């Protein structure tokens, strides 16, 4: 298992223009993340965790500093290069699942592989494997509207994992789920982390998630106030 640094953030600053002034969402952020980590950006609303997640995921651009993801400086990537980075190496999980309602579970999970232009047989195998990881083999032909919230989030995990990305970015993945479903989801992600050595980065303030994290980076008002590694995970693992 190669535990080299895959994300390096140096002196990151992010400003948002507000009227004639600016709002500084992130400042003086310095973080290194190794492959296979299961970490969380934790903090209250407005602390900057989603903004940081978006910058790591090349969905947003920094104002100052340097963000390197898998040896690529995301600050200088063109739109096409950023799209390529996301399509091959990054997976996203959202609070609201964002499944496409007109497509079946299979088709939703298949979408990232279509963009990678994988052959149909390979796609089918990969989608079936991903749905097996999340325990939804029997829902392959269902539409999202026919699934529970927990099942939808599991489909969204399968969609993020189907291409076996290096990094999964999960923004409040359990916010809409009850305790039982949250634990189920987190256990699934934990096992994928250990089996596939995928790096999971959460943006959360949900205690249910926090208890599973191996590393907690606390943000307050856009600054890292604490970065602790958890050696003894009490409940989840």
């Amino acid at each position: 298992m190669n535990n080299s640094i895959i994300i390096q953030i140096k002196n990151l600053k992010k400003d948002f223009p507000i009227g004639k002034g600016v709002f500084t969402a992130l400042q003086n952020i310095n973080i290194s993340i190794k492959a296979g980590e299961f970490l969380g950006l934790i903090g209250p609303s407005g602390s900057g965790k989603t903004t940081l997640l978006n910058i790591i995921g090349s969905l947003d651009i920094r104002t100052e500093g340097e963000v390197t993801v898998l040896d690529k400086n995301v600050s200088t990537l063109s739109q096409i290069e950023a799209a390529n980075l996301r399509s091959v190496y990054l997976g996203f999980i959202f609070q609201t699942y964002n499944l496409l309602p007109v497509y079946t579970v299979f088709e939703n999970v298949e979408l990232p592989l279509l963009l990678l232009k994988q052959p149909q047989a390979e796609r089918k195998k990969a989608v079936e494997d991903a749905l097996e990881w999340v325990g939804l083999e029997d829902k392959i032909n269902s539409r999202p509207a026919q699934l529970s919230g927990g099942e939808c989030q599991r489909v969204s995990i399968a969609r993020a994992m189907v291409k076996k990305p290096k990094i999964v970015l999960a923004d409040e993945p359990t916010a809409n789920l009850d305790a039982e479903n949250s634990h189920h989801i987190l256990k699934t992600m934990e096992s994928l982390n250990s089996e596939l050595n995928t790096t999971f980065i959460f943006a959360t303030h949900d205690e249910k998630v926090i208890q599973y994290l191996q590393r907690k980076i606390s943000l307050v008002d856009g600054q890292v106030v604490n970065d602790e590694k958890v050696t003894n995970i009490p409940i989840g693992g």
Partner: protein
Amino acid sequence: MIKFLVKGLMRDRHRSLFPIIIVTIGVWITVFLHAWITGVFTDMVDYSARFSTGHVKIMTRAYAENADQSPNDLALFGVDEIISKLQNTYPDMTWVKRIQFGGLFDIPDENGDTRSQGPVMGMGVDLLSPESQEIATLNIEKSLVRGRLPRQPGEILISDELAYRLEAEIGTEGTLLSSTMYGNMTMYNFHIVGTVNFGVAAMDRGALIADITDVQEALNMTDAAGEILGYFKHRIYDDLRAQNIVENFNSTYQNIDNDFTPVMGTLKEVGNLGEYLDYASSFSGIIISIFVIIMSIVLWNAGLLGALRRYGEIGIRLAIGERKGHIYRSMIYESIFIGIVGSVIGTALGLSAGYYLQIKGLDLSSLMKNVTMMTPVVFRASVTTETYYIGFFPGLLATIIGTMFAGIGIFKRQTAELFKELEA
């Protein structure tokens, strides 16, 4: 990926059915209006040409200035010679002389006293010469309601409406009271052998159709006629050629001081038909332009609404690494598909409606009782080759333009902003 997008398009009615319905309606209206306007204006021009203007028309200068009064005292002399020259110069054209005249038509009782009387709008045309095409030009045979066509001098046709008004039966003899071209009063007896209904309000109110030789005799117009009309082969108007002929003819009759100098005009020049023709040709363009603009705005908004609905889809497609350009192109491809489907359906519906009105027509006779123009009372659409494609490209174009505008908004948005809106 194409299969994936097609599946989405088929399953999401808001994305496919609604825009298709908008395009279908727009194209339908455009195609139908084109057929309708083409039909109405074509008929108007055709009827004017047949009954009044020809494709080119020769009158004296003075007659031309008061043509609406049919002033036969200003008629052309030596018409046979003029026609002979024209036939030699333009052998492919048909040249006819006509006399328009007004008067009273008197139906006597058994004692020879007036039983009924009414104003008539007379037309002297060549009904009896074997080589004459006037019966076909004026569509007299098909317009015959009762009786038969004139076979010998002294026989006339009158409009069916006039016959009923005067209570004149077929076989009745009536007397035309009018004035000669020299201003004297004239009375001439005619034998009614048939009644006609042309479907032209101005004619059907009180037309009297007589052979031109009889009219010349009645109005003392030997070798004279009010008008000489020229028709192109197959009765298809060619404005460029008409202008050339007019130019050539008028250059040989340049004595502008003489009221009786013949002057020729094209169909567009006489009867102010030029304005109608120009209007007809520009009207389709105006309709199509308005259609494209309105449909583009509607489809732009529909596209924006669709895109708002599809923020989730667009956001996730961006997140998993699809390029903005690819998403934009896929939206354009979808719009092409929608545009083609909507345009095909709209064209089919428009053509069906056009064909229906081409065959059935819309009878507006009750609204046209006092109309003096040579226009038909049953308005018909006309489906031409142009009708088949006139709505198709605007339909397609409007859909693509609408989607392009809607897509640009998405394209210019920062990816992270899309996500914020997506999460909202």
